[in-house]
């Protein structure tokens, strides 16, 4: 139990791979210069010395890294020459997540990430490779806090009590492969893949011999337009399939379970990921409908969490369901997150007099560009004109989308940047509230609402522009903690 343990030797592999990957970038310029000067021998010599050193250090650091489970804390010691000791108390641990990539799976291992509250990641710990059994053991030992169990000395260790976690039937939702395929096809991530593709190609271009390159371009330009279009379509379809594949790999078997005080998510095909979201840290629930998904009546559900996870996904927020029919969201929330509810009926929309503001905001810049281009090159004026028209439609839809709704202790705010985004925020998560008016607003009886919550970064502001003054005052009254109205 309290014997210091080393990580599984496979942990060395991760260290070695990481170190080599980092040093490749550092030494690449030197290598290129050396190869340019035909100094092959020195390059190979240097590389082998470097790899030898990396392997030596990895072995040593693996040898000196131990972890040890104690009564109600975990103690980690690391460092080859400079010893670092870290102790994390059980009561400070927010979540313990086990994740596995391909190498882990081959050896039957898992990575254990221990996360504490607060934004100081140096207090967190990650054991890069332990056996699955050990990982599970750590998880169970550290996870379940002593639930008000005052243990007598003569009653044996406290762990015995906590082993008996009552087998309740917790609500659970799984994503179907079909839904994932739909999610992948509507994700629009092929744009990102296209970008990566282009980047990779521009890197590779330097390695392609000029003669071959010239021949290829000549061949391409000699083809008929129809062939080129067909070719482009095929490439797009391939990229789209890649996007679907990516979604499938990422969210395969996505399962979300609601325990008493936390949401628990497992997902991934090649790399199994677990994440635990303590309910206490959820600041808001959001529903996102991208342009492609909105007409199909589909949406993804996410949560905003205070302070991030350990360098995991750099996404803005954490998905709690990759894709579902919008009409199923209310029942989904009722089952898994009854603290939040989504009933958008009776949402308060913007007054008609707010429309000009939205139009001017979106149309102004494209309009100016159109005018300038029309003066300079009249025959090309149709291009920015189309952009201006699109901006018109965009502004109008922004205006149509925006709205709010107060339901007892919850504020619903619906806005649109490009995607439609609905946020459900409990009263106690709103950090402050502002009402902004300029002179025109005051004349027209409009006001802008600005309220903020905490999220992974510096906070997220919900800004609802040009509501009626009465509406903003109504929200302020609901928000205010004072007895008499503001």
């Amino acid at each position: 139990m309290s014997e210091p343990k080393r990580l599984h030797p496979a942990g060395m592999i991760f260290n070695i791979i990481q170190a080599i990957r980092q040093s490749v970038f550092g030494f690449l310029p030197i290598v290129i210069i050396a190869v340019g000067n035909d100094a092959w021998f020195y390059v190979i010599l240097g590389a082998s010395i470097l790899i030898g050193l990396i392997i030596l250090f990895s072995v040593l650091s693996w040898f000196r890294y131990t972890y040890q489970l104690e009564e109600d804390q975990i103690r980690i010691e690391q460092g080859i020459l400079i010893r670092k000791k870290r102790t994390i108390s059980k009561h400070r641990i927010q979540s313990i997540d086990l994740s596995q990539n391909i190498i882990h799976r081959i050896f039957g291992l898992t990575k254990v990430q221990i996360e504490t509250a607060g934004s100081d990641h140096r207090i967190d710990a990650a054991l890069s490779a332990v056996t699955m059994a050990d990982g599970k053991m750590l998880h169970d030992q550290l996870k379940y806090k002593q639930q008000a169990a005052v243990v007598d000395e003569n009653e044996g260790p406290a762990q015995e009590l906590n082993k008996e976690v009552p087998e309740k039937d917790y609500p659970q939702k799984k994503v179907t492969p079909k839904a994932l395929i739909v999610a992948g096809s509507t994700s629009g991530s092929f744009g990102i893949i296209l970008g990566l593709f282009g980047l990779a190609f521009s890197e590779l271009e330097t390695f392609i011999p000029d003669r071959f390159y010239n021949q290829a371009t000549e061949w391409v330009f000699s083809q008929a337009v129809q062939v080129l279009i067909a070719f482009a379509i095929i490439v797009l379809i391939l990229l789209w399939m890649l996007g679907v594949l990516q979604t499938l790999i990422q969210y395969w078997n996505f399962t979300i379970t609601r325990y008493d005080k936390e949401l628990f998510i497992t997902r991934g095909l090649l790399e199994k990921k677990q994440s635990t979201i303590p309910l206490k840290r959820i600041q808001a629930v959001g529903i996102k409908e991208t342009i492609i998904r909105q007409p199909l009546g589909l949406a993804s559900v996410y949560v905003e969490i205070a302070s991030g996870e350990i360098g995991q996904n750099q996404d803005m927020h954490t998905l709690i369901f990759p894709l579902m029919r919008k009409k199923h969201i209310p029942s989904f929330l009722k089952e898994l997150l009854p603290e939040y509810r989504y009933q958008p009926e009776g949402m308060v929309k913007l007054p008609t007099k707010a429309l000009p503001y939205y139009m001017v905001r979106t149309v102004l810049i494209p309009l100016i560009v159109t005018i300038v281009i029309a003066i300079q090159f009249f025959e090309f004026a149709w291009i920015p004109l189309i952009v201006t028209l699109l901006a018109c439609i965009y502004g109008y839809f922004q205006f149509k989308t925006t709205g709010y709704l107060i339901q007892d202790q919850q504020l619903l705010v619906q806005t649109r940047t490009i995607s439609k985004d609905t946020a459900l925020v409990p009263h106690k998560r709103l950090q402050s509230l502002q009402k902004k008016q300029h002179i025109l607003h005051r004349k027209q009886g409009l006001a802008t609402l600005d309220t903020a919550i905490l999220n992974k970064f510096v906070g997220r502001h919900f800004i609802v522009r040009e509501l009626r003054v009465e509406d903003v005052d109504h929200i302020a009254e609901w928000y205010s903690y004072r007895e008499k109205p503001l």
Partner: protein
Amino acid sequence: MREQPNERIATDAIKAWKLTAQLIAIIPLLLTIAAFVVAYFFDFLSYWLGIVLAVFTVLECTITILIIPKLRWRRWRYQIYEQEIYIQHGILIVTRTVVPMIRVQHVDTQQGPILKKYGLATLQISTAATTHEIPALLEAEAADLRDQISELARVEQDDV
């Protein structure tokens, strides 16, 4: 949010802001002088640039030194309640802010050399996600408020 808050900030705030604006106004003034000097010694610059800069400087001085501080002071109001802080500021865009006491994470007072000259201090109120200021309060008042707010904010908080 229908009524504006009723406490005003210190009258010396106008003086402090004026002094700040005067210090900033030195930059266009120097540029103007430089333009005239260059035009006098070298032929390739006409006096027009200097004249344009001079007009700009005069305008800038009138607006930032004579007009803005007064307006700004008139608009600035605050009120501290048992449960929340209510602030109003902004010349063109009037902003009214409500910060509940139980959301306040910490309170600081700040004082630069200019504010020190007039015995003033700025109060900064931070929540988990936002920061708000009440500028230019009398030192003693700022300290009192700081203590009062941190006292009130000491109410049992939720984990944010």
